[in-house]
């Protein structure tokens, strides 16, 4: 009885306390909901890209009796976000490794990447400075100059057995490799427009 009288006499106080408790309870619930965590998930795809400075390399020669050599370069750029790195290889696009002009040909150099050789007349080849047995310096553009006795070149391997130009351990951003191409010819080589195609291949390592 005394308790009922207390409630009626202090009805305002009781309501205020009850309302406060109610608000406090719901506020806590709202705060709890606000602090709930959300997981952000993102899958970054692995990509690999390959770019050459030029679609073609011109190696025209004006031959001389003792032989003339033209050297030109191409820069290959590889980028990958694959943490395994990349492998870059080079090979002829087909099984024929000669430069062809109708029925005339210019054979590939007799050297290999491990044991390249100074270029002989009427051959073509490639070099990557400091790779394998290639010279560690000296490669530069030349236009129908005297055939270098010191610069070494290798023959282009046929498709299916490419030579590895570079392998990397991790990701790469615009990693460049300069490849030098050379043709040496003397006046015994029939004139004509000689062509061939090579393929750079980049895969994850």
């Amino acid at each position, binding site marked *: 009885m005394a308790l009922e009288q207390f409630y009626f006499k202090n009805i305002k106080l009781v309501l205020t306390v009850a309302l406060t408790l109610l608000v406090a309870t719901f506020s806590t619930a709202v705060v709890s909901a606000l602090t709930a965590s959300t997981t952000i998930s993102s899958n970054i795809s692995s990509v690999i890209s390959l770019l050459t400075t*030029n679609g073609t390399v*011109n190696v025209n020669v004006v031959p001389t009796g003792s032989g003339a050599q033209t050297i030109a370069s191409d820069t290959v750029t590889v980028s990958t976000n694959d943490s395994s790195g990349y492998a870059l290889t080079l090979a002829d696009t087909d099984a024929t490794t000669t430069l062809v002009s109708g029925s005339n040909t210019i054979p590939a150099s007799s050297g290999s990447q491990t044991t390249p050789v100074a270029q002989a007349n009427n051959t073509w080849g490639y070099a990557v400075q400091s790779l394998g047995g290639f010279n560690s310096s000296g490669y530069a553009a030349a236009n129908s100059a005297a055939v270098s006795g010191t610069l070494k070149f290798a023959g282009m391997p046929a498709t299916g057995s490419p030579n590895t130009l570079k392998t990397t351990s991790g990701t790469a951003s615009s990693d460049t490799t300069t490849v030098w191409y050379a043709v040496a010819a003397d006046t015994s080589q029939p004139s004509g427009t000689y062509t061939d*195609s090579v393929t750079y291949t*980049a*895969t994850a390592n």
Partner: protein
Amino acid sequence: MVIHRKGVTQAYWVRFVAVLAFLATFCIVPATAYAASQDITMTPTSVSPVINPGSVYHGSFQVIDQGKTGYKFLVYATPYRVSGEDYTPDFTILPTAPNISSWLNFSVPGGFINPGKTITINYTVSVPENTQPGGYYAAAFAETQYPKVANSVTLNEQVGELFYIQVAGPVVKKGELLTWQSNFFQKPPLTSTIRLQNDGSINYPATIQYNVRDILGHTKYSLYTVKELLPQTIRRITVPWYKTPSIGLFKVTGSVSFLNQHKTLPTKWVLVMSSTVRFIIISILILVILLLVIRPKYLSKKKKRSRK
């Protein structure tokens, strides 16, 4: 006479300019490359599907042209294997091995891609019935098709996606760390080598964490890499630090994780000295030795003279 001279001079200059124009047109061009570049990108770079014998796996990859010129491209598949511990990639068909590339079929054989565009190539991998469980490997390539140009070497580019296919069933997963080497005395670049072996019937990834610190403990170089090991092969992973200074003492640490094993590589100390630094140090040492040998003799002679 004067008029004649003038006439000769004018004719000479006309000829000279004509020859220059001819040379500029036909002779200066040859040693330079002129064709536009092609930029080919492929994503993803590898895929590892697990497929039941007699089942077909559906997937896709994208070819992207991030360059400024469009080009024709070709899509095709080859087998994939490696040779040697350096893992030289080999994409040729072996008559004695199953031609895994025949399992792959593409939605289109290629096409033309415009600059800034992406083309999605869908493919299926059909595993024949009764194929033994284990690892089978192939590569899918997208190759630019640049037309041949007279008197030129035409440069085509191709990028590949490697297929690490696991034909479902019981497989043997077995591998080990063979060697971890980092010689104490080196010339730049500081180089370390890890050799891993896969004795099983399926490929496995090995995660390598590699760190180079100076004597104060500051990290100078670190590398995180994941390498796939094909079955029944040994892989030598060479880690060069290309920006190694000419001289320095470094602490090399690392770890390798594979097949639920985590191996901490023993710490190696490496003293790096370039050829120039070695030459300078040896020269200084020779000078010091000479001074130590010659100076006492000189002093003793001087003493003798002074006594006399």
